[in-house]
């Protein structure tokens, strides 16, 4: 079953009456449990695609359905509801709220959703922090911890409402290579547990651990690379080389 279906998605920006079409009729599907990377050169429309699919930005035309729900015609509040309960978001900059401790940052969407009692939300937040190895900085303010710890906290926050799909926009962009690898291994783990993940990245190494790569050029899908699920027996280097080779062919 497809968790995301995109049909002929167009996005045009207007600035001082100059119109720029960033996405020019994108169509693709993403199956439940799939791990997909979107790549392309700067300005190719990667992030715009992600924000339009997740309903954070309004598409100019086309159709997007998430888990059979058509986003067209949904009000702001209905879209917010969808984001709260069904989607998780991770950004390049963690965008944690500076007034809150790491723990409260993580709990916040859980308190908002009210799907579970506060105790249950807090217990889940504890477990997530433990799993991502940041429980020792639980009560720290955000300026007291490292960039890697912040990004992990952002991941915990995105998972607090147990979303069906995780959107990540350059989640490792501001991390060093060790932290980036750790974050990707967490993603892989989550994906193995059944979570669908759509990630925007410009890092071939990161993209090589996903199931499929969608390559955007000038607002259109130029090509897709099926890598298949990463298994224990896979040689990561080979996947990486294959990805790189494919990308070079695309002029990346």
């Amino acid at each position, binding site marked *: 079953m497809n968790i995301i279906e995109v049909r002929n998605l167009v996005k045009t920006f207007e600035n001082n009456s100059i119109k720029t079409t960033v996405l020019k009729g994108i169509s693709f599907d993403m199956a439940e449990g799939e791990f997909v990377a979107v790549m392309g050169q700067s300005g190719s429309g990667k992030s715009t695609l992600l924000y339009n699919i997740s309903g954070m*930005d309004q598409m100019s035309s086309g159709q997007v359905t998430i888990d059979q729900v058509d986003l067209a015609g949904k009000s702001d509040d209905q879209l917010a509801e969808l984001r*709260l309960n069904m989607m998780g978001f991770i950004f390049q900059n963690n965008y944690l*709220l500076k007034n809150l401790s790491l723990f*409260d940052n993580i709990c*916040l969407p859980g308190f908002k959703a009210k799907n579970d009692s506060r105790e249950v939300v807090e217990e889940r937040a504890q477990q997530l922090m433990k799993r991502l190895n940041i429980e020792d900085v639980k009560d720290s303010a955000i300026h007291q911890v490292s960039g890697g710890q912040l990004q992990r906290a952002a991941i915990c926050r995105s998972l607090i409402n147990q979303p069906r799909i995780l959107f990540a926009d350059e989640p490792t962009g501001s991390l060093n290579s060790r932290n980036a690898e750790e974050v990707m291994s967490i993603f892989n783990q989550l994906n193995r547990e059944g979570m669908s993940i759509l990630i925007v990245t410009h890092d071939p190494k990161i993209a090589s651990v996903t199931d499929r790569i969608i390559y955007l050029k000038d607002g259109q899908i130029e090509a897709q690379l099926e890598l298949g699920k990463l298994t224990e027996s896979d040689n990561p280097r080979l996947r990486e080389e294959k990805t790189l080779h494919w990308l070079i062919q695309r002029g990346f």
Partner: protein
Amino acid sequence: MKNYKYSLIRNDFVRNKAINLTLFVFLFISALLMATGVLVIQRLSGSVDQIMDVTNPPHFLQMHVGEFEREQVEDFVLGTGLVSQYQVQDMANIEGIHISYIKQDDTRGNLADSLLDNYFVKQNESFDYLVDLDNQIVELLPGEIGLPLIYAKRTGIEPGDRIVIQQAEKVYSFTVKTILRDAQMGSSLSGSIRFLLHPMDFEELYSHAMRQESIIGVRLHEEGDIGKFESLYKDEANKMPQNGVSITYPLIKLVNTIGDGLMSGVIIIVSLVLIVISLITMRFTVLSTLEDEVREIGVLRAVGLRKKDVNSLYQMKYRIIALVACLMAALASFGLGKVFMSNISLNFGLSRATPLSYLLPFLTTALIYIIVMFSLGRVLKIVSKMNVLSALREGKIVRAKDSKKQRDGRLSRLFQNPETSLGLLDLRINTKSWLVLMMVLLLCSMIILVPLNIYSTLSSPDFIRFLGASRNDVRVAIQYQPELEDFVREVREASKSDPEIELAREYQSFRGMAESENGWQTLLMESGDYSEFPIEMASGRLPGAADEMAVSLLNQEKFGLSLGDIFPVKLGQEIVNFQIVGVYQDITNGGYTTKVVRQVDQDILEYAFYLNLVPGADHSAFVDRWSEDFKQAKVLLFKEMISQTVGTITSSLLYALSVVFVLSLIIISLIAVLYISLRMYKQYQEDATLLALGFTKTNIRNSYLLKSALVIFAGVLLGASITLVLGEPIMGAIFAIFGFGITSMNFIIEPIWFALLGCLSPAAIALGAIAIMTSKVDQVTIMNMGNI
């Protein structure tokens, strides 16, 4: 470097248009008000001086009813060696009911409603002149009359209209030739007013007047000798005529100045508050801008600019804003000044503008400019403390101090909605920033409430209780006149038998003599039953027994009395030892009065009947009926009396209050818009994050509204509380300075207006402005997060 500086400033003006414009408007309004207030006071003082110079009012005057030995008075007065000029002006006192007017369009009316004593006089020869609206001494032809300005304003009578006077079966008709300014009696506070006639007409009217009075007036060689002369004149040993009030030059000047002076005072106080608000706002905007531009400043420093250069870069922008605002305000103050001075111009004739009049607004605004730049210099000191490294790396001016509040940043579990908790947390962590909004609301509600309270106090019927008289429905006053006793008896009978009267009490004013350090002095006394018509006491109580007395504050000071003292007073030949049982404040009769319950066998100066009418009675109809039945008495609705007595002050005050109210609301809305825009700008990233996490735009808007509402109501309530606590002592002090016989002032508050104008309006305007601005939350997009 220079070009770089100017392009940076130019860019800042373009980018932060709204903020810079708001700041400019603020500085402009505060500088404008301050300059206008100062200008009005300067021109007011010049105008009052000018009319005093032209009309030359007496340094000391004694009103007197009845005959007196003129030669003896002249000998005494000139014999003191203090007097340069002396004159007696005879006056025909005519009741308002006998003075009718016929306008050229045949509109008719009379002056029965007027509380003022109407004196008809001829022009003086030596001093105390009556002048026209060009401040020229008026000379009339037979058949012409000069009409007091106060009546021209009240009734709209113009030159060419006719005044008809009925006196002792005779009817006199005059054509209004000119409108008169009267420095001595021009104000409604003085209680009397003069009409001018040709000497021939005057002699005719005077000879038939039912009530003849005189003003014994002197000009002294030295103004400083007024007190000395007054003491000599009032010394019983000198037996000078004293059947009436005496007034001195400073009081004449004060009475002329108080209305417009109070208005100017309010404007200046408001402008001071505005300057404080401007400084707070500027500090807030500067700090906010600095925070946003820390990295840029870091870069500037890193590429080699000195701290001084960066400082001057920032100062330059504000210097330009402040300079332009102050200059424009100085220029605009001439225009606004004209509006405020229209009343002064009519009352006194505007004095010729001196070079100082032109310079003063510029000097005032220059002072404001200096204050602004000084305060800016202090705020910008923070740039000197900047650590270049943390500016570049962390975007912070100084290394983060690990705010304790931030470390404790736990989301309150008390509230069901996390947005409520987030809002409250923001208030707790950014208290200093939110205090700006609170302070503005606090100050604005205060500058509305203080004048509002003064206004509601002055115009309240209860106010009179603080002024030595009690509240009633109708007051009937009968002054000395032929066959007084019979007439009073008639009124007394009517007051008992009239079915519309529920309660009537009679009071008699008379004179006693009391010993002070300057010898035996006249003491004005009032006798009657005060149980039904009590007055407000400053201390002690009203007299209840025949040998008890309450004295006014000024008498208490004059005779050095305390509660419980025995105070010997000579009533005729008898000396009565009164015990002082209470002290009250009073502005009637110059503030020197006493109250007793003892019935005396003295010459009565005035009989007063206080009447309360039965519920449902038509008060105006009653007054009309009684005025007709008792033509020699002054029958007045109590409310009318108040409005006529303090009318000059309240109308100026109401004008200032309206200006202050409108200005405050403009300021509040501007600040609210500026403040919330800056906050939303700073919060943009967090708001976008919350949207991404699944919060709705309504959630975010509500969070802003909640925070703002709490801060706004706290500000307004604090402002109201401070006004309630500190307003009265401040006003009391101001009145004490004026020497009006009032040292403590109890505000009489109109709760509805207090809440509506001083609390709800500011709060509603602020919240409304914020609600409109928070609709911008709709424009928050996660897409732009990285650019903020």
